[in-house]
């Protein structure tokens, strides 16, 4: 049997009572019928039991009457039980027992009712008979029918009526005295009796029908009520279910509910609320005071203030994190959230509801996370310190190597030895660079690598790089060539070191994976705009190539295309990954096309900014200089021939190319027949058949070419002996690869001073050489410029530059002095150093703005920021501070003048014309690297407008001030004075940059940056490094100063053709 609950659920399902549905009328009808039948069955059973008892009672009464009235019948003096007694006991039992059994065993069944009706009517018949048809006993029939009406069923009444009618009919015929009490009766008298009975039955049936109708109504109402009750119950169950779901969700979400009737100050806390704090529900009074008492004293005011602010309507939600005291006394982190859900018309809060979120685990996780982060940062710092230490330890011996190379160089080596020394120094520098690269990789991984934005010469950069790698290529017998398309801007702003790093990596890889053939580097402009250019550097090789399915692994860290390559060729697998990230940081990318067994071509793109005022790329040279001259290019490598042909053709030379000695001689023979005059020969040393020396000898044997200049292009690591060169008639030996600059210089060296003069007299150069006219103010007189700069070196350089350009310059050492100067006298422009003692440039700018706004000064001068940070975002910061432009230190003359001109509306050409007119002092000097701490005299002179006297004064000032600055910096580091460290390092960085001491400037800049990033732990190592650099530089400085001539030429080196940076 199903349990009542299951039955109830199945009944709900059977009636289709969905959630919150109205009772289904079909179900109600069925239920009403069910109830009606139940009720009817109850009545039937009850009446059955009644009649069962009644029949038994009648039976007993019958026997009693028989015993009383007719116990015995007599025959004379003898007697025997009366037949009536026998009938009362026997016959009556026969009448009574079956219906009584049915009433007992089968109550409620129709057959029981009908049997009872029959038995009851037979009882009536017997009674009537025994009374001799006594009329009064007929009432037993009516009484019995009335009692049968208890059934509220008309059918037993009909049965009883039929029994009565039949009995009367039959007895009326055969025993009329038995039923009517008379011997003779009308044959229709039974009808009269039956009609009377029917009359009563009719009323009883009517009454039963009415009663049944009422029963049906009651059942209908009850069913309807039950339906509504079921619906209500189901609704309650749904509500309870939702409540349970909410309770469980809040438990799972560690939420405690609170509901505050603000007006009545009644508070409700949910069970979960109490449990969250370890209390039993209701264990503490739900009141505002009780809640406040549980708050941590340090959090209490803040949290209460948050709640009060929200109650006042000042915040959209009340949200606060706080600690609450658990029952066990432990403080637990809770995030309390709440919102006023009802406000009165006057805005006063009525009701506020919210939750408490258990965030204890979150807080603990945060704490663990912070500890883990601290540990990771400590590990990272340790790693960085290790790298810094290692780099310092490696750098020290390398510095020793480079120092010894300098000493070796001072012993007067021949040009060949010079090249070896330079190559060794370059290698040392490369090693240093690689060390830096490892640090860079760490920075890349940490996302902290910054791209510099400084001016550099692309051609020089590439040429230097090629020179570094040429020896290796030569050793493998590879032809290493490069070319730069004319449309590529020559001087640009970008990160020269990163570009060189990319070049080194790509070319080095190409050489590494190429066994024979060539490695060709070409540079072209992939995209061009007035201010920017996208350079595409192609490195093509004829190496092993890479299978297409392995190309994607190339740029992954520590991964090469094939592990077998690692075994065969070595390498860490970092290079291409670093190069790719560097290119991306420089606004470009790297792609590769490769065919296995044929070769590869890597295409690296980077974005650079054009230097305004530089000679426009692609400007046509004056080809008339070499009019009538032809160059014979002899090389078995077609690419080399093509590159050289392009170069010399650009300069106006006619190029004749030959793949070998025989072909060259044939060409020379044609020239004799009336072609162009071949004045120069570029002869490859290594060629099939006759080599370069043999060809030179063959040329010299031709009388008409004895004056022809011959340059032997050597790609062997061991050059020919000088005697052999002399014997073959070679005028100059150049090691491959030969860049445009070196080739041009070499050609010029051989072709003669006259041609060189003509080259220098090309339009651009002639323009620079034109005499300058001092810039004039529109109102007459000179432009007035206020130079606010605390660094005496920078101040000196800038002043010289500006006065040389004809500006009227006033100086100020602090921001306050600058403001006073502006208040005193009008200036057209202010060059404002951003970092100055007492008052920095930003504040000074703001005060000048204020002076102008208040009318204290009538005209606001244009303000140009000077900063040595040269970091991304500096420009925006300066402009936001109200400055008009931005210049990074060390000051670039052209850039500075272009900026000033643009702001003051001066004619650009006039500035260009006056830039360095009359001060160009021949070939640019080579860099000076005293004791390993390099001062680039070339850059120094350029920054000093090739004014040697100015350069010497600048160096002398730096010589005097830098020891004090260094001591102040060390003192600040020892005291941990961040501000002082940054100020002093900044000053030292600017001064070093002005004297072109790049390493000192960079180290000082790094210290400044480390201090700014609160990484003082790394500063000490850098400071030691800086100290070494500065001491070495200062030690060599007197010699450098003496080496600079008054007209600006560097005395230490004059061989411009072999500059390797």
């Amino acid at each position: 049997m199903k349990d009542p609950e299951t039955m109830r659920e199945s009944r709900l399902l059977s009636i289709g009572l969905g959630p919150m549905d109205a009772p289904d009328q079909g179900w109600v009808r069925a239920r009403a019928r069910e109830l009606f039948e139940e009720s009817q069955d109850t009545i039937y059973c009850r009446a059955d039991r009644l009649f069962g008892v009644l029949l038994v009672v009648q039976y007993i009464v019958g026997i009693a009457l028989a015993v009383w009235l007719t116990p015995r019948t007599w025959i004379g003096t003898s007697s025997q039980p009366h037949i009536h007694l026998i009938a009362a006991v026997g016959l009556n039992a026969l009448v009574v027992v079956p219906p009584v059994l049915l009433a007992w065993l089968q109550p409620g069944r129709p057959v029981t009712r009908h049997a009872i009706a029959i038995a009851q009517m037979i009882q009536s018949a017997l009674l009537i008979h025994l009374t001799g048809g006594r009329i009064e006993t007929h009432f037993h029939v009516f009484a019995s029918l009335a009692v049968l009406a208890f059934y509220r069923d008309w059918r037993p009444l009909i049965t009883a009526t039929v029994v009565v009618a039949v009995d009367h009919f039959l007895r009326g015929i055969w025993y009329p005295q038995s039923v009517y009490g008379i011997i003779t009766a009308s044959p229709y008298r039974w009808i009269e009796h039956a009609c009377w009975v029917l009359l009563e039955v009719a009323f009883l049936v009517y009454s039963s029908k009415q009663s049944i109708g009422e029963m049906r109504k009651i059942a209908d109402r009850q069913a309807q009520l039950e339906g509504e009750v079921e619906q209500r119950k189901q609704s309650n169950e749904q509500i309870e279910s939702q409540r349970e779901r909410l309770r469980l969700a809040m438990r799972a979400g560690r939420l405690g509910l609170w509901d505050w009737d603000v007006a009545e100050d009644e508070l409700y806390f949910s069970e979960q609320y109490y449990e969250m704090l370890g209390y039993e529900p209701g264990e503490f009074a739900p009141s505002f005071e009780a809640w406040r008492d549980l708050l941590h004293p340090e959090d209490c005011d803040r949290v209460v203030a948050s709640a009060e602010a929200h109650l006042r309507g000042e915040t959209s939600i009340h949200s606060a994190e706080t600690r609450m005291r658990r029952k066990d006394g432990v403080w637990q982190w809770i995030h309390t959230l709440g919102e006023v859900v009802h406000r009165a018309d006057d805005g006063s809060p009525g009701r506020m509801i919210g939750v408490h979120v258990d965030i204890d685990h979150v807080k603990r996780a945060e704490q663990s996370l912070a500890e883990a982060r601290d540990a990771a940062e400590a590990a990272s710092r340790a790693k960085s310190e290790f790298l810094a230490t290692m780099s310092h330890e490696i750098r020290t011996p390398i510095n020793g190597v480079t120092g010894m190379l300098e000493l070796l160089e001072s012993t007067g080596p021949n040009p060949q030895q010079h090249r070896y020394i330079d190559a060794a120094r370059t290698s040392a520098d490369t090693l240093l660079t690689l060390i830096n690269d490892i640090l860079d990789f760490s920075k890349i991984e940490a996302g902290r690598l910054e791209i510099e934005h400084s001016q550099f010469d692309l051609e020089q950069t590439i040429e230097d790089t090629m020179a570094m790698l040429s020896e290796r290529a030569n050793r493998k017998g590879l032809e290493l060539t490069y070319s730069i398309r004319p449309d590529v801007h020559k001087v640009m702003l970008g990160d020269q070191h990163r570009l060189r790093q990319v070049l080194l990596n790509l070319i080095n890889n190409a050489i590494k994976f190429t066994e024979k053939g060539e490695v060709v580097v070409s540079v072209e402009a992939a995209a061009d705009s007035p201010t920017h250019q996208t350079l595409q550097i192609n490195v093509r090789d004829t190496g092993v190539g890479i299978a297409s399915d392995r190309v994607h692994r190339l740029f992954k860290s520590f991964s090469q295309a094939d592990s077998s390559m690692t075994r065969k060729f070595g390498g860490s697998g970092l290079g291409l990954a670093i190069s790719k990230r560097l290119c991306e940081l420089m606004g470009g990318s790297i792609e590769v096309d490769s065919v296995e067994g044929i070769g590869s071509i890597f295409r690296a793109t980077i974005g650079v900014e054009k230097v305004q005022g530089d000679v426009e790329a692609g400007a046509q040279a004056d080809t008339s200089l070499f009019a009538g001259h032809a160059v014979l290019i002899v090389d078995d490598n077609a690419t080399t021939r093509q590159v050289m042909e392009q170069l010399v053709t650009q300069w106006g030379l006619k190029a004749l190319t030959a793949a070998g000695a025989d072909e060259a001689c044939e060409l020379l023979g044609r020239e004799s027949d009336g072609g162009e005059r071949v004045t120069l020969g570029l002869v490859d040393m290594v060629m099939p058949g006759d080599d370069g020396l043999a060809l030179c000898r063959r040329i010299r044997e031709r009388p008409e070419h004895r004056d022809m200049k011959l340059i032997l292009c050597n790609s062997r690591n061991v050059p020919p002996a000088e005697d052999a060169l002399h014997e073959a008639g070679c005028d100059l030996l150049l090691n491959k690869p030969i860049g445009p600059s070196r080739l041009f210089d070499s050609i010029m060296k051989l072709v003669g001073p006259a041609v060189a003069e003509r080259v220098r007299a090309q339009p651009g150069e002639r323009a620079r050489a034109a005499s300058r006219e001092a810039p004039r103010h529109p109102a007459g007189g000179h432009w007035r410029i206020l130079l606010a700069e605390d660094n005496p070196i920078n101040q000196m350089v800038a002043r010289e530059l500006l006065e040389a350009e004809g500006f009227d310059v006033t100086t100020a050492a602090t921001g306050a002095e600058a403001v006073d100067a502006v208040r005193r006298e009008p200036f057209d422009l202010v060059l404002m150093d951003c970092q100055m003692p007492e008052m920095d440039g930003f504040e000074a700018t703001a005060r000048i703005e204020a002076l102008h706004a208040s009318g204290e000064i009538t005209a606001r001068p244009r303000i140009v920021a000077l900063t040595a940070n040269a970091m991304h975002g500096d420009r925006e910061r300066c402009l936001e501070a109200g400055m008009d432009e931005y210049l990074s230190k060390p000051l670039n003359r052209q850039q500075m003048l272009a900026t000033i001109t643009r702001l003051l509306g001066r004619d650009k050409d006039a500035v260009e014309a006056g830039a360095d007119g009359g001060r160009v002092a021949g070939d640019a000097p080579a860099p000076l690297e005293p004791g390993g701490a390099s001062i680039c005299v070339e850059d120094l002179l350029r920054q000093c407008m090739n004014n040697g006297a100015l350069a010497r004064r600048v160096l002398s000032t730096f010589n005097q001030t830098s020891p004090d600055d260094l001591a102040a910096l060390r003192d600040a580091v020892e005291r941990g004075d961040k501000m002082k460290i940054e100020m002093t390092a900044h000053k030292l960085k600017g001064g070093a940059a002005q004297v072109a001491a790049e390493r000192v400037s960079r180290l000082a800049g790094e210290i400044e940056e480390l201090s700014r990033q609160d990484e003082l732990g790394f500063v000490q190592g850098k400071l030691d490094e800086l100290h070494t650099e500065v001491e070495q530089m200062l030690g060599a400085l007197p010699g450098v100063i003496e080496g600079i001539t008054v007209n600006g030429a560097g005395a230490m080196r004059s061989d411009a053709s072999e500059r390797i940076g």
Partner: protein
Amino acid sequence: MPPEVEIRPRIVEALVTGFLPRRGLLLVPLLAVWLGVVALGAHWLYAYGSEPGPGADPPATLPAGHNLPLEPGRGAVVMFMHPQCPCTRASLREIERVLARVQDAGVQVVLVLLADADVPSLARGGGLWPMAERLGGATVVSDEQAGATRTFGVSISGHVLYYDGAGQLRFSGGVTASRGHEGRSYGQTALEHAVTGVGGEMAEAPVYGCPIITPAGVAHEAAEAAGGS
């Protein structure tokens, strides 16, 4: 609800479900058997109640040797009774009603009740004795050993004889229509007519009651009386 049920007339459904058992149709024949047996029993009872006693042959004239206290020259209603016969109670009530109706006739009434000293139940004063003695104007006579009964040739309790003033038997029979049943009956009417002298012939009526003596005994005694008388 299945469609075939829905289209069934309600009266049919009512009859089927109301008169016939919903299950256990075996009860129907049992019910019929029961009714038949009950009908037979009832018939037996009815038949018993309607069966009169055996006929009697009383003397046509008042026997000479009777010892009943009868006044000569007056009509006499003599009723023989068994004091323990339940049926005679109705006869006694009916004779009372008859006598009430014919009281003007001046008849004398003698109630003869069987008595037997050997049988306690038949002792004088028991049974119907009190009721008989309450009948106004009647003389209650104890009939020891049923001598008078035999003398008059009757055997059934409730048998009434009427001898007119001349001693001629004018009525012989019972005054109830059936056994123990009160009410008008042919015997009553015939007796009244005899008493009032409406009819000239002697009337007879069936007698319903207990035998006072066996019929055989009655015949023997009657013969002796006749021979004697």
